C-alpha cells in the first residue's frame, strides 16, 4: 500500500476513530455461553434462595398489638387518652428461647411519615446544632415554626409528632416481676448520632434553648429527653434520631430498644413476661394501630420471606429457561450447523 504523501489540510484524518473503524468487540450471546450461564446463575440463585429462606425461617418474631381499639385489649382504657399518663400492662409468654440479641421494635400502621408536607417540615440546620436557626426556624417547619412568635426548637411536624409511648419489660419469675434491661444505645444510625445530629456547643445545654419553646405535642423539652445520660440527650437522643428518620411506607416499625445486657444476652428465655406501656401516643384520630415486636435478626436483617422465595423462583426459572433453550437449540440450531 502506498501512503499518499501529498496531504492537504482539507484531507480528513485517517484515524480509526474518524473513519469509524475503532477496534470493536462484538458480544455474541450464543447458546454455548448462555445455556451454561443460565444454569450457573440459576443454581447460584437457588443456593442463595435456600440460604435466605432457611435463615429467614429461623428468625423468631413476637408481635403484639396494643392499640386497644377493640376493647378486649388491656390498653383499651387508654385508647381515647382521656387520662394523661395512662399506663397499661400486657402479659405474654414465650414458649421457647428467642435467641439474642433480641430487638424491641414499636410499629405504627396507617401512619404517613412519608407525606411530603410532613417530611419537609423539619430544620436540619437546627438539628445540626446551628443556633442561628433556633431563633428563626426554617419556614418549611410551618405550622410548627413559631408559637405566638416564639420559635419552636426542634421545629416542624416530624419532631413535633415524635413517638412518646414508653415501655418497660418485666419477666415474671415466681410471681415476681423482674425488669428486663433495655439498651437504648445503638438503635440509630451511627452517622446520624455522630455527625448529622448535633447538640449546640453550649454548656449547659439548656442555655442554648433560651428564647425557644418546645414542640406543642411534647411534654418535656428536647434537652430533657434523657437527663441521665448527656450523650443521649438533646438532638442526639437516639429515640429522637430513630423517629426523625422517616419511614418509607405507612406501615412501619422502628427500633425501640435492644435486649443485650446481663442475663438476656443469650436472648429472651421462655417464660411469662409483662410489658408496661406508658400510653401517650394518639392513633385513634386516623385509625392507626400500634404494636410492639420482639425479634432477633440474622446477617440479612429482620425476618423477610420475600427475598428467599424470590431467589428460589428466579433461580428455578433460570434453570427451566436453560432447559427450554436447550430444546429449542437442539431443534433449530444444530441441524443448521451440519
Amino acid at each position: 500500500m502506498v501512503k499518499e504523501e501529498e496531504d492537504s489540510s482539507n484531507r480528513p484524518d485517517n484515524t480509526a476513530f474518524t473513519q469509524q473503524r475503532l477496534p470493536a468487540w462484538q458480544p455474541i450471546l450464543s447458546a454455548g455461553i448462555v445455556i451454561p450461564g443460565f444454569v450457573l446463575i440459576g443454581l447460584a440463585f437457588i443456593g442463595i434462595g435456600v440460604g435466605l429462606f432457611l435463615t429467614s425461617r429461623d428468625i423468631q418474631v413476637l408481635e403484639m398489638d396494643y392499640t386497644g381499639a377493640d376493647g378486649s385489649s388491656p390498653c383499651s382504657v387508654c385508647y381515647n387518652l382521656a387520662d394523661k399518663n395512662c399506663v397499661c400492662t400486657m402479659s405474654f409468654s414465650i414458649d421457647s428461647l428467642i435467641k439474642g440479641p433480641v430487638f424491641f421494635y414499636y410499629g405504627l400502621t396507617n401512619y404517613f411519615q412519608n407525606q411530603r408536607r410532613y417530611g419537609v417540615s423539619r430544620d436540619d440546620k437546627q438539628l445540626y446544632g446551628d443556633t442561628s436557626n433556633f431563633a428563626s426556624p426554617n419556614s418549611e417547619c410551618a405550622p410548627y415554626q413559631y408559637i405566638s412568635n416564639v420559635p419552636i426548637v426542634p421545629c416542624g411536624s416530624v419532631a413535633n409528632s415524635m413517638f412518646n409511648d414508653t415501655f418497660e419489660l418485666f419477666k415474671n419469675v415466681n410471681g415476681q416481676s423482674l425488669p428486663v434491661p433495655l439498651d437504648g444505645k445503638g438503635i440509630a444510625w451511627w452517622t446520624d448520632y455522630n455527625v448529622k445530629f448535633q447538640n449546640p456547643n453550649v454548656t449547659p445545654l439548656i442555655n442554648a434553648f433560651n428564647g425557644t419553646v418546645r414542640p406543642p405535642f411534647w411534654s418535656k423539652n428536647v434537652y430533657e429527653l434523657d437527663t441521665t445520660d448527656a450523650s443521649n440527650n438533646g438532638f442526639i437522643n437516639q429515640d429522637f434520631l430513630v423517629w426523625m428518620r422517616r419511614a418509607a411506607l405507612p406501615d412501619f416499625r422502628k427500633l425501640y430498644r435492644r435486649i443485650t445486657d446481663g442475663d438476656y444476652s443469650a436472648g429472651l428465655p421462655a417464660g411469662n413476661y409483662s410489658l408496661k406501656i406508658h400510653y401517650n401516643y394518639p392513633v385513634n384520630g386516623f385509625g392507626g394501630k400500634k404494636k410492639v415486636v420482639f425479634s432477633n435478626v440474622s446477617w440479612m436483617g429482620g425476618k423477610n420471606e420475600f427475598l428467599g422465595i424470590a431467589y428460589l423462583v428466579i433461580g428455578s426459572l433460570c434453570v427451566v429457561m436453560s432447559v427450554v433453550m436447550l430444546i429449542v437449540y437442539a431443534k433449530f440450531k444444530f441441524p443448521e450447523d451440519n
Partner: protein
Amino acid sequence: MLRRGLNRLLGVDERRVDNRTIYIGHQSSLVNEDFIPPKFCDNRIVSSKYTVWNFLPKNLFEQFRRIANFYFLIIFLVQVIVDTPTSPVTSGLPLFFVITVTAIKQGYEDWLRHKADREVNKYQVTVLENGQETPKESENIKVGDIVQVKENETFPCDLILLQSTRDDDTCFVTTASLDGESNHKTHYTVPDIERDLKSLNATIECEQPQPDLYKFNGRMHIYKTNQDPAVRSLGPENLLLKGATLKNTQKICGVAVYTGMETKMALNYQGKSQKRSAVEKSINAFLLVYLCILLSKALVCTTLKYVWQSKPGQDEPWYNKKTQKEKDTNLYLKMFTDFLSFMVLFNFIIPVSMYVTVEMQKFLGSFFITWDKDFFDPEIQEGALVNTSDLNEELGQVEYVFTDKTGTLTQNNMEFIECCIDGFQYKHRGASSELDGFCVTDGPVNKLQQKAGREKEELFLRALCLCHTVQVKESTEQDQREDNLDQVDGLRIDENVLQPPQKERGFIASSPDEIALVKGAMRYGFTFLGLESKTMKILNRNKDVEMYDLLHVLNFDPVRRRMSVIVRSGSGEMLLFCKGADSSIFPRVRQEEVERIRLHVERNATEGYRTLCVAYKRLSEEEYAQADAGLREARLALQDREEKLLAVYNQVETGMSLIGATAVEDRLQEEAAETMEALQRAGMKVWVLTGDKMETAKSTCYACGLFQRKTELLELTVRTLEDGERKREERLHELLGEYHKRAVQDAPPVKAGGTRVCFASNQDYGFIIDGASLSMVLNSSSESNMRSYKDLFLQICQNCTAVLCCRMAPLQKAQIVKMVKSSKGSPITLSIGDGANDVSMILEAHVGIGIKGKEGRQAVRNSDYAIPKLKHLKKLLLAHGHLYYHRIAHLVQYFFYKNLCFILPQFLYQFFCGYSQQPLYDAAYLTMYNICFTSMPILAYSLLEQRISIEDLIEDAALYSENAKNAMLRWGLFLYWTGLGAFHGLVFFFGVRFLFSNPALQDNGQVFGNWSYGTIVFTVLVFTVTLKLALDTRHWTWINHFVIWGSLAFYVFFSFFWGGIIWPFMKQQRLYFVFANMLSSVSAWLVIILLILLSLLPEILLVVLRNPRGPYTRKIAAVTPLSYKHLNEQK
C-alpha cells in the same frame, strides 16, 4: 356591473399588474406631466431570516413553537408559581441551556447568510449614467439602469440586451448556473437601435416578473425626434438573466428590467424552510403519548388523593397539621395546584435532556461524514460538507432519489467514441482504454486505412466536418486554459501527442455533441477551420485546405430529429449532408445500406452512447434549383412558415445514401451506473430530472443502467402528444389511460412497502415525460381532470423502475418533488444536483444533496449535505444513513423507555405516601439521572454503534430497506419499549416494596427510611437501564466500555460523595450516608442483584432466542470478527 365598476375604479392598479413600463436610462424627456414613477423593488437579494432587532423575539418565538420547548417552559413556570416537590432550577437550567445553545447556533447560521448576501449585494458593477460609466454596488441597480457587463462576469439582474461588442449584434452566455446547460447560447440585441445609448430614447413595456426562464414578452418603443415611435418586439432571446455568465463577448450593455427578488433566478429560488426529519415527527408523536401518560398519571393521582382524603382522619391527621394558608385555600384551587404538582413530579418522563442528546448526537454524528476519507476528492481537495445536521437519519430513509443529469450523472463532457463507415467499425486508438468483446464479430478493428474504401471514409469525414452549426472560437489564452481544464487529464495528453498544440481550437456550438463530432473528425485528419462568409474551410488529411460554399442549413429540430446542410464543393458538386437520429434517417435512405449500420447503431445505443447516422446525397443542378426555390419561398412565407419549411425539408431529405454512424459519449460520472444500481437495489426509486433534451437524457439513463434493454419505455412528451391529429388534451387523456393500464393494472400486484426489489418484477417500465406535458398534467384546464391526471401519473410513476423528466424548468423540478413528497405514504425524497437549477428541488426534497461540481456553488450552499462526486452518494446513504437512522431510532426509543421506568416507581410511590407528591428519589438523583448517570452511554452508543459493519452495508444494498418507512420507530416497537419500561418500573418498585415489608435490613437491627427505599430503587434503575443498553450494544469499542462502566462507577462514586458530606447550602441532608448504609446491608445487595437480573432476563432470552433465526444476525456474527481482522492487517 359592480365588478366592472370596481375595475374602472381600480383601473390604474390593474394596468400595473399586467405590465410594467421601463424608461431606459430614466429618460426624463419622455415623462409627461402626470407620470408617477413606478415603484420597483431594488436589486437586493435577501436570504437571511433575522435582523439584529427581531432576532431575539423571533427566534424565541420559533423555538417555543416546538412542542417540547413549550412544554418545558410551562413546567418551569408551574414550578416557579406553585409549591411543588422539586425546585424550578431542576427544569429551568436545562431549558435555558437548550434555548441558548440553539439560539447561538441559529444566529451564527443567519450571520453567515447575511455575509453571503452582502457579498452579492455589494458586488461592484458598472452603470451607464448619461453615457458616463459609473461604478455602483449591485444592490443599487434600479429598473431602467443601463448596466455594462464584461466577459466572464455574471449579470447582476435581468437585462434586455441593447448593445454588444460583437459585430453581429449578438452575445454568448452560459446559463449553467440557471438551468444546467453549459453550452453557449446566443442572445441578440434589439434590432435597429442607435449605437450611442446616450441618445437612445425608448421605453420598454413588458410583463410582470414570472419564474419561467424561457418565457419573456415585451415591446420596446423607440422615440426619435420627428418620427413616429418605432416598436420592436422583445422575446427571451433579448433577455439576459441574472446568474448567467457572459462568454466570448468583450462587453455588453443592457437595461435592467427585473431586479432583486423579482429576477427570474430569485423567483425560481424558493425560501429555505426548515426541514424536519421523519424521526423528529415520530419523536413528537411519542411525546404526545407520553404527555397523555403524564396527564393521566397526574389526573389519577389527584383524583385518588381527594377520594382518599375524604375518608375520616386521612385529610389532616394530628401529626401533620396544615398551615393556616393551606386551610384557607379554595378546594378547587387546591385540586388544581395538586394536579400541577403531580405534573411537575412526573415531568421527568419527558426529558429535556433527550433533546439535548439528540441535538448532540446529530451535531457530533455529522462529523463522521465530514471526516470520512472516502468522500475526499483529490481533484478538488475537498471532502463532504454537512450544512444541516438535523437530517442525518433521513439519509437512511430515502425512498425516492431525484437526480439532475448534467454534471451529476454525467460529466457534461462529450467525447467521440467511434464511428462506423459503410458497416465497418472505427474506433480511435487510445480514446477508450477498454477493449470491447464484440469487435471481433465485425472483423478486425484496426487502423483506418485498412477498412472501408478510402473514398467512403473521406466522404464520411467531410460530412462530419460540414454538417453542423459549429463556430470556431477566437481563441485567447484564457479560453485555452479553460478548455484544458474541462478535459480529463489522460485524454488530453493523448491529443497533445497526436497533434501539435497550435492546432488546438475551441469550438462553440449550441450542442456539445456537435463539437465532439467535429473534434472526432479532427482526429481522423479532417479539421474544420471555420466559416467565413458562407464558405466552410476544411483541412484534409493531405494538409490541403478544401473550400465549400454553404448554401443552406436545414436546422435541427426535435420533431424531425435531424439536420442537413447543402454545400457546393470546390469542384462545383452540390452535396447534401444529413445527420440525425437513426429513426429519422433510416426511412430516408436505401434499405440495403441500413442493415449493415443498424447493428452498430443499436449496440452503441444500448451502450449508452448517443448515436447519430450520417447520410448524403448528390444534388443535380435541377434538383438544387428546385430545393433552393422551395426553401426560399418557405422562409419568406408569412403564414404557416414552420409547416411549409418542414414540408420542403422532408422533400429534400429523401433518397439519400447512408454512409455511417457515429457514437458519442457523454461521459458518466465515476461509478454512476454502480451507484444507481445500488440505490435501486436498496429499494429506492430513481427519477432523473433534467433541463436537457429527451434524447440526450434517455441515452444517459441507458448508460447508467436506469433503463435496461428490456425496460419498456412509456413516453409522454410533446412528440407523442402530437402524434395524432387530435387535440393535445385528448391525446394526453388517452395516453395516460393506456400507460396506466399497462403499468399499473396489468402489472402483477406487488407488495407495497420498501422491501420490494425492483429487479424482481418480470417487466420493467420506464417513464419519460417532458416539461410541457408535465405542466399539462399538473395544470389541466378542468379541476376534476387535474386531480385524476395527477393520480394516474403518480401511479404510473410508482410502478416504473425509473422515471425520466426532461426539459424541466427549475421550479418544475421542485413541483415534481413536491408532488411525490405529498403523495400517499408521504415517502422520503432526496434530491441531488450540482447547479443553481437544482436549488429549488434540493430545497424542496426532504434531503437535498449538492455536488461540488464545476457549476458554481449555489447547489452546495443550499444543500443539506454536499459531496464531491455522485459515487459518494452510495456510501452516504447505504452506510452513513443506515447507521445514523439505526442509532437515532434506538436513542429515541431508549430515552422514552428509560424515563418511563424512572418515573413509574415514583408514580407508584404516590399510592403509599398518601398522594402527597413525595418524590421517591432525592432531588440530586432526579436531576442527575438524565444528565449524568445515563446520558453518556446512550450518546456513545448513538455515535459509535455499527449493528452491521460499514463494508457489509455497502456491499449488500438490500440491507438498506430494512429501515424503510421508519421501521424502527413504528408504533409496535414503541409499544414494546413502553411495555418494557413499564415492566421494569413495576419490578423495581414492588421488588423493593416487598423487601421493605420489614424495614429492618441490617444485621444490627436498625431500620431503613424512605430515602434508603428510593436509593435502592434508583440504584437498581441506573444499573438496569445501563446494562440494558450494554445488551443492545453490538459494537463495543473502548469508548463504549469506558462510558458504560464509567457511568456506573460514577454513579457509585457520586452517591458516596453526595451522601458523605453535610452540604452547608442544603436545607435538608436527606441522603447523608444513605448510600453507604445501603451497601452495608446484605439484603439490599441481594435485592439489587435480583431485580437487575429479573428485569434483564426477558431481554436476554429474547436476544438468545431471536439470534439464530434472524435473517441478518448470522451474517453480522460472521463478518464482524472479519472486519476486525481487516483492520489489524491494515495497520
